[in-house]
């Protein structure tokens, strides 16, 4: 696997360059905003990638807390299975009852509920299968760090897009503000990791991650209501998107996902090596004969 890394790196670089070309040349010019709108092809994929990474961090944090005892592990497994089953049933029910179907937000299909549930459960069990309890903590750190990097990109490209289009650098719009809060929560997570001594760090950080994950939907919801009471410029509204633009967007997202994967892989390996080194150093200190006075 390790030999694959340079090849994958080159392939990803090529893919990213191609995606950049798509974004700059191939994508059609937007009518009202002009070329500045092309920031969209970097801004949105970065946001989706950051959210995905933070979600993986959430799973990893829960697993770290839960897998240390057999009973909580079992409870968690069965909860996930229940979630998957319930979402499937809910999808079928909603699809068959027209009133419920109308209650769904515009443009979503009932099947997406099932898909979401299955994907969440699937991710949980995949991570559980391939990562041991210690490894899962390394995964948590990795995804938090790389997630913060991508989130920073979102928060920088956002104002750079807003300024020429609306004339202001920042607005307390739902998405920008909830992304900022998400960034703040995960930066505080990373600071906690750095500032606490190694014994209890993973547990406390995992607890913080769970809090953060609970917080995010609340943040989104409260800011959404906040905003609807104080009308502000709407960020790229709902409605359909030009299929050519959609294509470029997805290609860029895919390219960034590959890039994020490689970055996470490197960071993860770094973390595993670092832990091994620390353990070895601790062992050496214990076994050192020099420290014993003669």
């Amino acid at each position, binding site marked *: 696997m390790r030999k694959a890394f340079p090849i994958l790196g080159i392939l990803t670089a090529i893919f990213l360059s191609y995606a*950049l070309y798509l974004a700059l040349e191939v994508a059609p010019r937007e009518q009202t905003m*002009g*070329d*500045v709108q*092309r*920031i969209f092809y*970097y*801004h949105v994929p*970065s946001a989706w990638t950051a959210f995905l990474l933070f979600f993986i961090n959430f799973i990893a944090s829960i697993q770290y807390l839960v897998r240390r005892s057999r009973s909580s592990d079992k409870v968690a497994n069965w909860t996930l299975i229940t979630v998957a089953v319930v979402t499937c049933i809910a999808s079928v029910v909603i699809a068959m009852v027209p009133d419920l179907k109308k209650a769904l937000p515009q443009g979503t299909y009932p099947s997406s509920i099932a898909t979401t549930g299955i994907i969440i459960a699937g991710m949980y069990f995949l991570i559980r299968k391939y990562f041991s309890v210690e490894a899962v903590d390394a995964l948590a750190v990795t995804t938090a*760090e*790389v997630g913060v*990097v991508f989130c*920073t*990109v979102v928060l*920088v*490209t956002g104002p*750079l*897009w807003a*300024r*020429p289009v609306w004339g202001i650098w920042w607005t307390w719009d739902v998405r920008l503000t909830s992304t900022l809060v998400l960034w703040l929560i995960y930066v505080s997570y990373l600071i906690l990791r750095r500032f606490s001594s190694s014994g209890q760090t993973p547990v406390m950080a995992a607890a913080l991650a769970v809090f953060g994950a609970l917080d995010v939907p609340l943040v989104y919801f409260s800011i959404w209501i906040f905003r609807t009471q104080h009308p502000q410029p709407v960020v790229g509204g709902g409605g359909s998107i030009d299929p050519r633009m959609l294509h470029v967007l997805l290609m860029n997202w895919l390219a960034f996902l590959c*890039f994020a994967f490689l*970055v996470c892989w*490197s*960071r993860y390996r*770094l973390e595993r*090596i*670092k832990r091994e*080194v620390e353990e*070895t*150093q601790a062992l*050496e200190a214990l076994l050192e004969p020099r420290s014993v006075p003669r």
Partner: protein
Amino acid sequence: MNFLYAAYGATWAIHIVYLITVYLRYSRLKQDVDELRKSSR
């Protein structure tokens, strides 16, 4: 437009800075590994 290039440039600048920090931590770690190997001999 200048903002467009600034945005793309900033994106890659952020990613590159992060990758550099990862690389620096990695090389420091390699030093530690070499030291450990030496002392265990």
